[in-house]
């Protein structure tokens, strides 16, 4: 019988290596948030109110170029729609827990926490204390994210523009997306998205962002259906 604290500690341990990526990512967001015209308080509290790194950076960038509200909210929603998949995936394991647990774990359900805890759940599907694992991995990430954001907000003005820190974002996203490309489904997705960025770059309001993302998802899904590769792959 595994105790709840064993399970919590296991979640923290499993999440630890990922924090190497979270720290600089959070600090970059803190820097970019203030640079893009958000106040230090808005930048810092976005990390707990929104708590979804990539969409926080997009939020800041879209605010900086005065994007209309609908496009901004649409971009955040499109970017975070992947959480629907995480939610659907872990519901099998925690949908019977009390409501307060489901609310708390939903709030903590980030890419990284999901990634480590779903592995644990698949290995031990009948562990009654399993919700403490996601609590551990989620709270660790939450804490590191708040600290990293604060560091970025405080250090922001000390970093010269020649450092080109904004380039860290495409670097991080390349490191995340490139290893996910495993078949013609993903190739169809990124090829279509790439073409759409060039084709629609001139459109106002950063419309290319949503068009390229949706077209890429559609192309990949159609490819998967056509070649019968649908599902989790």
């Amino acid at each position, binding site marked *: 019988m595994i105790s709840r604290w064993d399970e919590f500690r296991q979640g923290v341990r499993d999440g630890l290596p990922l924090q190497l990526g979270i720290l600089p990512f959070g600090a970059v967001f803190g820097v970019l948030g203030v640079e893009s015209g958000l106040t230090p308080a808005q930048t810092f509290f976005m990390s707990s109110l929104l708590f979804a790194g990539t969409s926080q950076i997009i939020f800041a960038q879209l605010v900086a170029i005065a994007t209309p509200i609908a496009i901004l909210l649409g971009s955040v929603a499109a970017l975070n729609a992947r*959480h629907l998949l995480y939610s659907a995936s872990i519901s099998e394991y925690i949908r019977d827990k009390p409501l307060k647990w489901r609310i708390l774990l939903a709030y903590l359900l980030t890419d990284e926490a999901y990634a480590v805890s779903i592995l644990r759940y698949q290995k031990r599907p009948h562990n009654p204390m399993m919700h403490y694992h996601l609590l551990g991995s989620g709270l660790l990430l939450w804490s590191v994210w708040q600290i990293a954001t604060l560091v970025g907000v405080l250090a922001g003005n000390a970093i010269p523009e020649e*450092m080109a820190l904004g380039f860290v974002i495409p670097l991080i996203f390349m490191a995340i997306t490139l290893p996910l*490309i495993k078949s013609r*489904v993903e190739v169809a997705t*990124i090829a279509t998205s790439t073409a759409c960025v060039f084709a629609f770059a001139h459109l106002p309001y950063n419309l*290319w962002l949503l068009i390229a993302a949706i077209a890429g998802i559609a192309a990949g*899904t159609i490819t998967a259906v056509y070649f019968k590769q649908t599902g989790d792959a």
Partner: protein
Amino acid sequence: MIWALIIISGLITFAMRFVFLTPVMPAKLSPAATTAMRLVPIAVLWTIVVAEIFLSNGAVADITSNTRILAAIGAAFIVWRTKSVILTIGLGLPLLWAANYLLA
């Protein structure tokens, strides 16, 4: 205004994290919908990568003077060899500095 947008964005995001943890939604998506969901981060993040490298002020930047392309090619190689976010940042950023310094 910004505060309201942050809070609404937070509520939207929380709703998407929570919706399948309620009994009112089906626990399973169709296979095609599952595939589409799986492709969301790839499509969105890759779109941002392409835009960050090739676009400048709402237009495709002059390719002949765009040092970000060289740095991105180097970074893609680092990702391929190491799959490490830290190394990609740690080596990719200096690549851009070097390209900017040498080609300025």
